[in-house]
């Protein structure tokens, strides 16, 4: 059978990879990181045209199914890794058939959960990861996607203004339905709870979990956090005719959580004294969409919220509340945001994403001001942050790791 590459935007360099060799035996020169740990499938990270690709060796039907599934999920605007293509029809040098390979693009500045636990850790890291995973699961479920293998290792995490944003990495077991039944959602939650507990117990056994953290207790938080969010996003609410302000209040609460309400059903009981409202269609990304519209910046939800707050503060401080929002946003971008993100020397640019850096500098400025007992100018805060804090941060642009990797592995690029 002839080698066949299915890809949305094929890179001819793909042809240069050693497809006639089992993935397990690919020579180091192709790899962006050395393989570690054990995994259900063979997965390798390869360098290709200056980027990192994840290559997973699985049966052709499964590779094609997962590729199409990831494309569908991306089209639905769900946070997942970007599928690059499927290479099938592989044969080894002796003419024996080899499994297909699914290619996905490595998500820049994303972190496998294990990498986070091997850094010196804030005690609530596990909780923040669970929160991010709960948000991801709610988003997927709202779209009718049943994951089937919810776990920390099947997600990647990006820093998001002190919190995390989770991305789906592995869609192998997933199914897209019109909508999910309660049973399907519960089953996903049950799988999540067991997997998370297992993953945390493993970290505990390896000495990576902070003292006193209880894997089982933390794992049950996925259920609580998910249920709270799900109910807030989808649950009906009843009130008296006179309390109509509660409609706006509900929408405001959903916006606060980062969701827009596209459709809200309002019904009254037969004598019209009671009103029931229920969100029918909600859309994640309330803040990031607004920021994108105003500034063209495409960032995570909490980062967007942080940036928008700073933009509002800028408007107020400069007494420009009555001006066109877009014009003020343009000025803010040029005078506040860009000077901060440009202040980073090139060799430190791989440490943090610009929006996260912005958030960190603002935090840093707040602490400096508190310490000094006066407002520290932004320029001073940037200079201090870049010289004292940033250099000690790990490089996070290309941290890669297989699902059961024991230690974070940083992609190694030649200096070209």
């Amino acid at each position: 059978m002839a080698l066949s590459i299915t890809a949305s935007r094929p890179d001819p360099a793909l042809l240069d990879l050693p497809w006639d060799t089992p993935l397990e035996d690919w020579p180091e020169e192709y790899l962006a990181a050395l393989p570690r740990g054990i995994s259900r499938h063979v997965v390798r990270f390869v360098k290709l045209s200056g980027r990192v690709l994840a290559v997973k060796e699985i049966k052709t039907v499964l590779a094609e199914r997962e590729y199409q599934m990831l494309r569908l999920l991306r089209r639905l605007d769900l946070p997942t890794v970007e599928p690059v293509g499927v290479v099938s029809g592989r044969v080894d040098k002796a003419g024996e058939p080899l499994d297909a390979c699914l290619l996905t693009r490595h998500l820049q500045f994303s972190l496998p959960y294990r990498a986070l636990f091997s850094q010196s850790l804030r005690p609530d890291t596990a909780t923040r990861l669970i929160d991010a995973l709960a948000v991801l699961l709610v988003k997927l479920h709202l779209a009718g996607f049943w994951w089937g293998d919810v776990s920390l290792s099947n997600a990647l995490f990006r820093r998001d203004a002190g919190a995390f944003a989770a991305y789906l990495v592995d869609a192998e077991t997933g199914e897209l339905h019109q909508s999910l039944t309660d049973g399907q959602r519960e089953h996903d939650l049950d799988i999540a709870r067991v997997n998370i507990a297992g993953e945390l117990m493993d970290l505990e056994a390896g000495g990576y979990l902070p003292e006193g953290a209880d894997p089982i207790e933390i794992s049950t938080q996925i259920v609580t956090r998910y249920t709270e969010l799900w109910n807030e996003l989808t649950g009906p609410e009843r009130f008296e005719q006179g309390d109509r302000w509660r409609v706006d209040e509900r929408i405001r609460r959903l916006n606060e959580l980062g969701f827009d309400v596209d459709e809200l059903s309002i019904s009254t009981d037969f004598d019209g004294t009671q009103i029931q409202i229920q969100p029918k269609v909600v859309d994640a990304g309330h803040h990031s969409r607004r920021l994108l519209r105003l500034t063209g910046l495409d960032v995570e939800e909490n980062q967007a919220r942080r940036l928008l707050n700073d933009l509002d503060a800028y408007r107020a401080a400069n007494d420009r509340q009555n001006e066109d929002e877009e014009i003020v946003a343009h000025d803010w971008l040029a005078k506040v945001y860009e000077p901060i993100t440009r202040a980073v020397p090139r060799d430190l640019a791989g440490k943090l994403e610009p929006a996260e850096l912005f958030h960190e500098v603002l935090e840093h400025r707040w602490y400096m001001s508190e310490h000094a007992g006066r407002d520290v100018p932004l320029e001073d805060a940037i200079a201090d942050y870049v010289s004292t804090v940033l250099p000690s941060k790990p490089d996070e642009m290309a941290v890669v790791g297989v699902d059961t990797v024991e230690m974070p592995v940083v992609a190694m690029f030649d200096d070209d």
Partner: protein
Amino acid sequence: MATVKYDEATRLYPGNDKPSVDRLNIDIEDGEFLVLVGPSGSGKSTALRMLAGLEEVNGGKIWIGDRDVTNLSPKDRDVAMVFQNYALYPHMSVADNMGFALKIAGVDKAEIRKRVEEAAKILDLTPYLERKPKALSGGQRQRVAMGRAIVRSPQVFLMDEPLSNLDAKLRVQTRTQIASLQRRLGVTTVYVTHDQVEAMTMGDRVAVLKDGILQQVDSPRRMYDHPNNVFVAGFIGSPAMNLLDVEVADGGVKVGGSTVPVERDLLSGASGNQVTLGLRPEDLELSSDGQGIPVTVDVVEELGADAYIYGSTKASQHVDDDEDGDAPEKPFIARVDGRRPPQKGETVHFAPKQGHVHVFDATTGERLGD
């Protein structure tokens, strides 16, 4: 352990006008290994998920033991989906990898240890319990994953195409392991596959579904010897049964130029002058006198003791076919003695072995006779 009962169980997806599973009735005995098999879209996975609690049941009921579980949530049904996830945790011992889910469920330590040890014995993993998964072979790792489901000692195991991501060799191995393991454990198991060979080799009984409707549920032997209709006849068995449309004649059916004897009783139930004749490739003999079904040989697949003939025949003629024109060519497969197989291009004649003739109604597809 428990029995499982599908009682007129129906699943209709919103927006569809035809149910994906239509009034399914199956009684599964305690400890039985039941395989649901069918082509894609047959409703086999949906049926399994209805039992797991992942699909709503829109009509009828599902029972596990004497409990009506129709409206219970998945975790309250005491069923285990096996192989959903077999990630192993590298820092944990094999014993902990098998038992950690019990810890979450609040089972006490001594009980966990007891169940893990029992499962390890069944899975031949006892010497490895204190080791890390890294030290295990691929097959052993997979058994640890099975152990994770076993220690939960659920009432029913559910498996949805568990072997689909394994390569052919490992699939056959694991198939045997699962089947023998299930027999040793005696836990009622419902297993879904699209592969009829898998179904026939693993199941105590096999349930064939098509378009959401149960076609037949029987032991593999009975299913093979006695398919209820044309669909089951063509679906079960590899290579597939030859199905020819033929005319009823005196004392039998007309095939090619000759008459194949079929009992009169069998044919009397036919709704017309035509029937569908079913002949398994392994139930045919080469005839030397030019009588029987004429077959032109296209390919000879030699397997040593046996050989398979892949050819075509014009012996099948449906009433709707153009009577003036040539009869259409239909593929025909037969097993012959491997030492003297016919040659490619040759035309040979096959006669069915005595008592191995299946006859189906040409209109309804139902089996005629018993």
